[in-house]
């Protein structure tokens, strides 16, 4: 299987409560909280699409979209 390539992080900003869980456990330090305590994708180029941020978000506010997806 080819390595998944990141398309984007889909963030539901109104749902994010700034708990920092996704930021704390991202293995590549891709994510940050902004000045409003909302998640921000600071270093998308480092993302390895492990989806741990998506799976650990208590608010279902973050989804990792990869390139191969959506084609069928």
């Amino acid at each position, binding site marked *: 299987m080819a390595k998944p390539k990141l398309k984007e992080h889909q963030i539901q900003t*109104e*749902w994010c*409560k*700034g*708990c*920092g*869980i996704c*930021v*704390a*456990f991202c293995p590549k330090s891709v994510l940050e909280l902004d000045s409003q305590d909302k998640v921000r994708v600071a270093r998308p180029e480092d993302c390895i699409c492990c989806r*741990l941020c998506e*799976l*650990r*978000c*208590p*608010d*279902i*506010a973050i*989804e990792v979209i990869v390139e191969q997806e959506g084609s069928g």
Partner: protein
Amino acid sequence: MPVKDYIRERFFPHLWCPGCGHGIVMNALIRAIEALGLSKNEIVMVSGIGCSSRISGYLDFHTLHTIHGRALAFATGVKMGLPELNIIVPMGDGDALAIGGNHFIHAARRNIEMTAIIMNNRIYGMTGGQYSPLSGYGTLATTAPYMNIDHAFDVVQLSIAAGATFVARTTTYHVQQMTDCFKKAILHEGFSVVEVLSQCPTYFGRKNKMGSAADMMAFYRDHTTPIGSKKKKENPDLIERGIFVQKDLPEYCRAYDTVIERAKGKGQKG
């Protein structure tokens, strides 16, 4: 199916506090149901009262939000009436093992097919941080400002002793293991218990100076270990996680069908 198809979006953002582990349990449960390919119409979620029990309001299955401690009693009625449905019963540790303790042991003893999820945050979250039967000796709570002197249940040992035929423990840090446990528990033909250590940063965390939600999850990472690991032998204080019991015993609804057959005068000879 996208995750959002399993939730009732009109209730989002949900009411759980920032970083509440219960949201992670909901997230993992959606993934498990999606992976199993179950349709929303074949699932009934029955909950009692508590922060944890709110999950039944957020998920778009057949849902019953009943009364504190009695979710398993309602669930038993639903399952006996409509045994073809999948029953999932998410409960707080107080809901399941304080007020609901008797329902819990007897549902386990009967081996009725359903999945009991115990979202163990070691406290009564909804009512303001009173200690629960899972808080444990030496912890602090609103109702134990000096220290709690009650010892905690071991949910896994209790479930096994009561007769549950599938028993697992995991944490909100171990999301992939949690999804896997939910999948196996839902498929199991008998009474399944999955204990999930789930942080309440607002009460248990704050009272016991455990830091942020992420700090509490790091605690689960550092203080748990797979069942029977070498680490456990070196450090007996580590909490084991994984599947402890998975065995086949006659299931209650199927056994009851036998009773009905016999009462009709068929199968008398057997």
